[in-house]
């Protein structure tokens, strides 16, 4: 196939094999062709993701009027204003508590649920279909349902517990903002578990059963098998699930917005609900953008870990 003489350098020969008998213009086309293929995607993301990112960074460093007009660089005043405000430290604390509590608890519970569902039993398919429900339901609706269930006066949790006889009078499940926040976390965990479960399940199903058989023959117990076979082999599924979860949960808006709107007085606010109120209720777009940027920086650490991990994994089979 090669058009080059045998004496040509190996590199050129290699190249010639890949693009046999091509004229100059065709060669050029081959070079630009991939970029044509990715162009629509790049244009779409450039307009609707990259431009907003640039805008947010620009606004975070500018003086912005209530009408959204940019009045020039203001020496990081937005950042200092945000960091100085007493609400911010509370909001940041809430965000960290929210993210860690939801991710950690749902990862542990989701992992255990996956181990349970990985057993063969009658009705397994039905059980798996049911477990997927919270994942598929939009968060607004899920949050409204929980808001109704835990209501002190007419919520069905009180009714249910009274019918069973566990309590004799209605319990106020949300006496303090902290308690309300805990319920929001519970709701967050509830909707996050299915994602973890299914990621782990897919990892579990790819494990060859012969490992377990061999371990059983060697006399390994259940926990020995769990820690020396199962965990190492689902580690990669679990890592991807966890990192994606950190990003989703950190940026999760609908649950808190539906249940409390961050009230009272920022006690249940996280960064995203806080910045939404700053931007669209208080007209402080500059400061809201600063909050966004602070959020990015926190997430950047997580995302870079994820990117390094997945790209390295991807390179292996390129």
């Amino acid at each position, binding site marked *: 196939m090669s058009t080059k003489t045998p004496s040509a350098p190996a590199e050129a020969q290699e190249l010639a094999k890949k693009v046999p008998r091509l004229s100059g213009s065709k060669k050029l086309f081959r070079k630009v062709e*991939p970029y044509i*293929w*990715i162009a*629509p995607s790049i*244009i*779409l*993301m450039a*307009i*609707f*993701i990259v*431009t*907003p990112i640039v*805008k*947010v960074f620009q*606004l975070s460093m500018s003086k912005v009027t209530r009408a*959204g007009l940019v009045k020039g660089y203001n020496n990081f005043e937005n950042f200092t204003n945000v960091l100085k405000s007493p609400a911010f430290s509370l909001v940041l604390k809430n965000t960290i508590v929210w993210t860690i509590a939801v991710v950690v608890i749902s990862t542990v519970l989701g992992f255990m649920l996956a181990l*349970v569902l990985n057993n063969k039993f009658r009705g397994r398919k*039905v*059980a798996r279909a*049911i*477990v997927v*429900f919270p994942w*598929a339901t*939009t*968060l*607004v*609706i*899920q949050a*409204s*349902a*929980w808001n*109704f*269930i835990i209501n002190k*006066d*007419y919520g*069905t949790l009180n009714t249910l517990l009274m019918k069973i006889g566990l309590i004799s009078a209605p319990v106020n499940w949300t006496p303090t903002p902290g308690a309300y926040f805990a319920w929001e976390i519970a709701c967050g965990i509830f909707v996050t578990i299915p994602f973890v479960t*299914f990621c*782990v399940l*897919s990892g579990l199903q790819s494990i060859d059963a012969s490992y377990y058989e061999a371990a*059983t*023959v060697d006399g390994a117990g259940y926990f020995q098998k769990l820690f020396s076979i199962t965990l190492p082999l689902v580690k990669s*599924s679990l890592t*991807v699930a966890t990192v994606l979860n950190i990003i989703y949960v950190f*940026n999760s*808006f*609908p649950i808190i917005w539906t249940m409390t709107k961050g009230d009272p007085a920022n006690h249940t606010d996280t*960064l*995203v609900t806080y910045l939404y109120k700053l*931007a669209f209720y208080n007209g402080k*777009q500059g400061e809201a*953008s600063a909050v*966004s940027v602070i*959020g*990015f920086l926190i997430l950047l650490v*997580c*995302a870079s870990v994820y990117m390094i991990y*997945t*790209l390295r*994994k*991807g390179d292996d089979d390129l």
Partner: protein
Amino acid sequence: MSQPANAVKKPVSIKKGILRLLLYFVVLDVCVITLYPYFAMLCTALKNRVEIFSGGTILPIVPLWSNFIDIWSRAPMAKYMLNSVLIAGGSTIIAMLCGIPAAYALARMKFKGQTAFLGFVIVSQMFAPVVLLIGIYQVMQKLGLTDNILGLIFINAAFNQAFTIWLLRGTFMGISAEMEQAATIDGCTRVQSMMKVLLPVAAPGIVTTLIFIFINAWNEYTVALCLISTDTFKPLTVGINTFNGYNMIEWQYLFAASIFAIIPVVILFMCIEKNLVSGLASGGVKG
């Protein structure tokens, strides 16, 4: 092989029976807890106001099916539904039209900046629309797309690109390129070989991706809440809050409408659950 297995099996059969019982107990509990909110929603959707606010009952005394009919006249539910379908459908089409070629290029070609592009795709997942809302709002203002369904379609399509490309790239890479090469030798262009050879084989992966984007766009709430102000342009997720007023919540209508919003998605999701997860969890390496 079979003998030692049997030898181990016998003495633990009682223990095994107990474990089995425990397993069913756990599974049953999980299912009950998972379904409880839906059960509560359905029961509430079938009650009248007085019954809901006086509490004390779980099941409705007399199921009031008319709530499911009333919602269509009490709010522009049909409009919300149509908007949701348009937004989810439109986003899916655009995301696929942009995503398929990109995923194809990543899976089948080598070019400079490939890793950078892939890196950008992954990092873009970090920027949820919520954090960018201020920027998105400004871009939409410039394009004249605030309070416009088309704006939501583009936003949803863009923010689902990462998933689309990631899942499809994995699917394409899991399929051998030999058939396409053969087609090329037979005189097919790249586009033809992709359309006629690759896409039919990749159909399961494509359907999974398609449904997943559709569900994501259908369930999207935050951007719609922020961009749409005209009632008749709202999708279901935002529109159902008509029943969630400042002074009182019409729980029965809110939940009746919610059930209409949930059902199509749950059905779709159950169809793809198996394929989707294997694509996500393996980091998109396999389809």
